[in-house]
């Protein structure tokens, strides 16, 4: 059984990759991922905004109340060095590379032009096998056009691509007017892979305190429908690799993603819920299905049900939507 696949030019043992998550903050977890059979691991994101926030907050803490009262001219010891830059993250990459043999993909969320390139360079120098750009942006300015935004995305990819030689993937949200166009332009700008899709922290309401709270819900298999469609549509149209993330919880889910054309599938919520060991379960399920259906390799099944290769290409487009409505057993008001 040949489970190998290629993602961002990296030859991987299986198409099972651990998505960026808090789990990868600990080296122990990375080792356990490798032991459980993960083919690669994406590290948690380095957030430039967080670093800037930490810096301001630290300054505030060290100065608050200081030099005001004769008995307490300061309230904290001041070490000579603080790790306010990306140093700790970069050290984590280095440690991760020493700890595991699987490829380690770093993840970066910057919020300044200089931030994207300088951190990307640092990440490469620290030894990451690839870099995933986590472009997390919620536009709220009504004056900003879709064109402006897309241009910003493209520019980030161009800038980073020019700065580093390691493969660069882009993790995206689905919220574009014409996602196919954006994907093609990112591909042209040099992205080596697209990771579909990012799940944002969405606000929630606490109905007891009547407060708005940022909250993340773990994905359910439902969430995979969106990347499934777009991977199916994009398969074969781009040079970039395609990674499926969101809602991948079982061997069956992995298969579906591979069938529509994903090079790899990324697991996060499933691991948070069921533990890192879940990867081996998913792999066994994948292998069992392939054995049962007499597939020899992942390569063989990859993209076989993509829009390009499936019997009913329209199934991935709007017509499918119309049919779903009309064929739904309940009324049309209860849309999935």
């Amino acid at each position, binding site marked *: 059984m040949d489970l190998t696949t290629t993602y961002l030019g990296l030859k991987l043992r299986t198409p099972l990759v651990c998505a960026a998550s808090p789990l990868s903050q600990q080296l122990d977890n990375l080792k356990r991922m490798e032991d459980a059979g993960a083919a690669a691991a994406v590290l948690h994101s380095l957030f430039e905004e967080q670093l800037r926030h930490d810096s301001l907050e630290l300054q505030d803490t060290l100065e608050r*109340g200081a030099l005001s009262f004769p*008995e307490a001219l300061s309230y904290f010891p001041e070490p000579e060095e603080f790790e306010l830059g990306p140093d700790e993250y970069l050290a984590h990459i280095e440690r991760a590379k020493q700890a595991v043999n699987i490829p380690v993909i770093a993840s970066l969320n910057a919020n300044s032009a200089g931030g994207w390139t300088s951190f990307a360079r640092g990440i490469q120098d620290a030894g990451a096998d690839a870099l995933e750009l986590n472009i997390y942006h919620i536009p709220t300015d009504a004056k900003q056009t879709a064109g402006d935004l897309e241009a910003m995305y493209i520019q980030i990819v161009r800038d980073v691509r020019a700065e580093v030689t390691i493969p660069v993937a882009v993790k995206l949200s689905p919220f574009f007017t014409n996602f196919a166009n954006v994907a093609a332009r990112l591909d042209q700008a040099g992205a080596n892979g697209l990771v579909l899709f990012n799940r944002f922290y969405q606000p929630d309401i606490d109905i007891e305190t009547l407060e708005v709270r940022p909250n993340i819900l773990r994905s359910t298999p439902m969430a995979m429908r969106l990347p499934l469609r777009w991977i199916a549509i994009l398969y074969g149209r781009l040079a970039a690799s395609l990674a499926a993330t969101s809602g991948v919880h079982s061997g069956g889910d992995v298969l579906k993603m591979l069938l529509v054309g994903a090079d790899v599938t990324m697991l996060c919520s499933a691991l948070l819920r069921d533990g890192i060991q879940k990867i081996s379960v998913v792999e066994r399920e994948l292998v069992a299905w392939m054995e049962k259906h007499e597939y020899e390799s992942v390569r063989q099944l990859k993209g076989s049900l993509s829009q390009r290769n499936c019997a009913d290409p329209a199934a991935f487009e709007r017509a499918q939507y119309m049919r779903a409505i009309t064929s739904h057993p309940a009324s049309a008001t209860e849309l999935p």
Partner: protein
Amino acid sequence: MAANKNSDGPCFATIDGNEAAAYVAYRTNEVMAIYPITPSSPIAEWCDQWASEGKRNLWGTLPAIVEMQSEGGAAGAVHGSLQTGALSTTFTASQGLLLMIPNMFKIAGELLPAVFHVTARTVATHALSIFGDHSDIMAARSTGWAMLGAASVQETMDFALISQAAALRASLPFVHFFDGFRTSHEVAKIQLLPDEVMRALMDDTVIAERRARAMSPDHPVLRGTAQNPDAFFQGREAANPVYALCPDITQQVMDQFASLTGRHYKLFDYVGAPDAQRVLVIMGSGAEVAHEAVEHLNRRGEKLGLVKVRLYRPFDSARFLRALPASVKAIAVLDRTKEPGAAGEPLYQDCVTALAEDRSGGPRQPPLIVGGRYGLSSKEFTPAMVKAVFDNLAAPAPKNHFTVGITDDVSMTSLPVEADFSTEPDDVIRALFYGLGSDGTVGANKNSIKIIGENTPYCAQGYFVYDSKKSGSMTVSHLRFGRQPIRSSYLITRANFVACHQPVFLERYDMLRNLVPGGTFLLNSPFSREEIWPRLPTPVQRALLDRRARFFIIDATSVARASGMGGRINTIMQVCFFALSGVLPKDEAVEAIKQSIKKTYGRKGDQIVQMNLKAVDNTLANLFEVPLTGPVNGTGDFLPPVTADAPPFVRDVLGELAAGRGDELPVSAFPRDGTFPTATAQFEKRNLALDIPVWNEAICIQCLKCTVNCPHATIRAKVCQPALLEGAPPTFKSAAARAPEWKGLRFVLQVAAEDCTGCMLCVEVCPARDKTENKRKALNLQPQAPLRLSERDNWNFFLALPELDRRKINPALLRQQQVMQPLFEFSGACAGCGETPYLKLLTQLFGDRAIMANATGCSSIYGGNLPTTPYAKNADGRGPAWCNSLFEDNAEFGLGFRISLDKQRELAAELLPKLAGALGDDLVGALLQSSQADETEIAAQRERVAALKQKLGRLDSPDARLLLSLADQLVRKSVWIIGGDGWAYDIGYGGLDHVLASGRDVNLLVLDTEVYSNTGGQMSKATPRGAVAKFAAGGKPGRKKDLGLIAMAYGQVYVASVALGARDDQTLKAFVEAESYPGPSLILAYSHCIAHGIALDAGVGARQQKMAVDCGQWLLYRFDPRRADRGENPLQLDCPPPKVGVQDYLLSENRFKMLTLSKPDAARQLFAGAQTDATDRRNLYQFLLGRDLKAAAAPSVRAKTPAAEPPA
């Protein structure tokens, strides 16, 4: 440490006295046992920081630093360390030195060489003082330690080394002392001692010999024997040769030092005319002032001399006499201490003895000698005072045992001082800066001194005067720059440059009184140069015109905002100073500031650097000169320091202290025993808040979470009859009372706008929201200024409304209890303080019969630091009686209250039956049998006592008179023993433990901030694992001590752990139960603190408390031994099992989070440990909760009467 070095010249640094002492102590020692005490704490902090950075001492090893539980402990540990051979030291002052005295006798008796570096500080007598004098040194002078006193920052560094070397060679311990604050906190440009010099003086052979004398089982000896009359005396005298040699050895070390550094010192240094007839003898920083004055006066033709005493003990009489010029006719000896009842102060007595014993046979007449006192508690000591002392010597009959620097109109000891006499050289640049604690003024000035010190040949000096209040405090920076060494160890009164960094100071303080004619005044003001003139107070306009000053303004706050700096104006004002003062060429100065910014802020992130650089660039374009052409048409006179309705003592004494004119008050203004009135904070309207809460009565649900959480008692509630609101000011608000018990009454919530600090806690905890606009609550912030006058009227109207009869209030129900009048108000605690709400609650519940023993710490400072006190009185004149004894003895002090009160009550109870015939059996019976269990009973007992006193007044017998003096004791008093975790967990723990075991009816309230807050956040045993604190820069490695569990083990102690911000109802229950429990009660009160690294002044405190409880980091419980009597488990856990881990809480407070930035690996490990701590502790309490105690129920051992037998 910033230092610069010319290619082959000396290395300079601009540092303060504490850093100078630490610099040498760290390099020349191997073991340091430390304990924080002002003003010496920074010495230990420097050493701890260097150790955490891996810096090595002279021998290439990392000194071992251990924080002890008290100074007594530190001295004991040093003693042990010395006996076993390590070079060991400690740092202390004042009360701390006193706690070391027992060990100091031992260390000297055993001839163990060591140096204690002491920032000489006032010993508490009628009052505590953190400031400098020699009373602590003098208290230790009989211990047998050599004592070497430094007079300046340079000397502090030099003498730190000289004492270290001399101690080893003489085989005697040395106290190396320098004046608290004046030298310990003065920043000066000094020459650093190179390591080679230190190595040369630290004689390896001597050190080896010393080690060879150390205790070791390899060559065992016996020390510390007990001796009898046959042996002790001789043994004591056996050490005489060591003392006899010490002065010579010290001088030899000084001479060797001089050969290496070029700085010459003598045990007694003489300065002045070789043929002087009048000579002053003095030690400490005053010697520098005297040096400046003597040189100045001699230049004017006088023939004066000065003897600076360096080695005070052993006092070398021969050298002292040799230091005096043969021409001397009259000597004045100045002591910076007071020894009441003595024939004279100590240094004076030593000099008198030396002269009296002088048998050198010289031809001179014995000179006249007088002694005087100066400078107690850092009282200013100026050249004018030195002149006054010399003038006194020139008088036909010089005054002896005089004072100088005060006006003593009681004992008439003081010398007259010429107010205008000044020795300030014209070529010294003198600048004064008035800033707010939070605006970075002091930091910027320290930085300016460094810049000038490092970039120019100028000598530099900086001294900083801080406020005794922690919120909204003013700082005054005194900076001098000159080409000659600066000896002016006194405040600037003739400044060439005065800067007012906060426009609000203009209306209150006369900052221009210290500006010389033609000087420069810089004002940070929101007004333009065209608008500013008529907005100045009239005296400010007059002073500017009279002095023909140059007047500059800048809107620094706007420039700061535009540069992304928020409210921090430090860099901007610093640039203005350089631009206007001319110390450095402007461009050079700007470049130096930029370099300094990169250096200072670089490690805190590039963003901070860029913001500051932008601020520098934006400053000069916004700095404008205001032409002085306008008429005198200002806003009127300065605001009075206290309100017009203040009583005479408050107005004339406390008000003058508040206005900064306390130095001008005569002795007669002060009480002779340190007794001051309470209820005085109400007269200081500080107007600190930019925004104040405004009540929306329509939204309010009258839960009163706002009032219970308010740290400053500035938001209060009352309920009253509607008719009482007639005639209310137009904007006064009220609502129908919602509580069913108060049907028909009006509910009022009122803010004291002029006392509010704007901490936002009330707004943050308010749960009531507008149903259509969620962001609006029942309390919303609005700018204070437009509301000030109307709210002043409203507040006064509110105060005049009668308090609700306490008998009608259910104290167990928070929304009722909170209408009780707080008798703790408007303290100077930090805005948003986590401690003060507990004290306020205490005074609401029991204040009218509370007597409080308060351990030294934050609570004693905001509770009892002059000028005013927050402890207040009710309409009957009753309120808390408050006293601070010491840091270490507070539990015992409070126990003394209880024993005394119980004894007096018992005596009264014994007298009552004897007088029953005259008083009536009914009254006597009722007085003796009253339970006084609630407000109704207490009120009834008060009425009975009033009736009793009336009857006793008519009786004429010794018993009746005795009973009359004791009658008030028949009303139950509530004894409260209050302090922080430093007291309860560390220094006072032994006493606290004993008091808990005593069975007596006392209430101990521990305001647990989990660090020594008052001295700047040093680790205590209450500090939780992983928290960064001073002396725990790498995160506290161990678990927090479980004081409550220890107390519960007695079985007879009521114990509660509370967090008001998390569950106010549980806190209230605990206070009521604790007070009602007839034995010892211990309340551990979680108190959020500025030292937690939280935005204290943004109202986050309650939220942090809730997070701490929700994650299990802090448990809420009550342990009531009375429950065991009922067959119930005495322990009740008042918080559900945590649903979240501690990590989120830890990361929400920078005391923990900063560890992730400084030591990420340690943070991961310690945070995991913190989770284990929380889980284990919860499990343990859960286990205790599950015990079936019915089977084990034993007869109660608790005190049922106040006279319970204390343990032997």
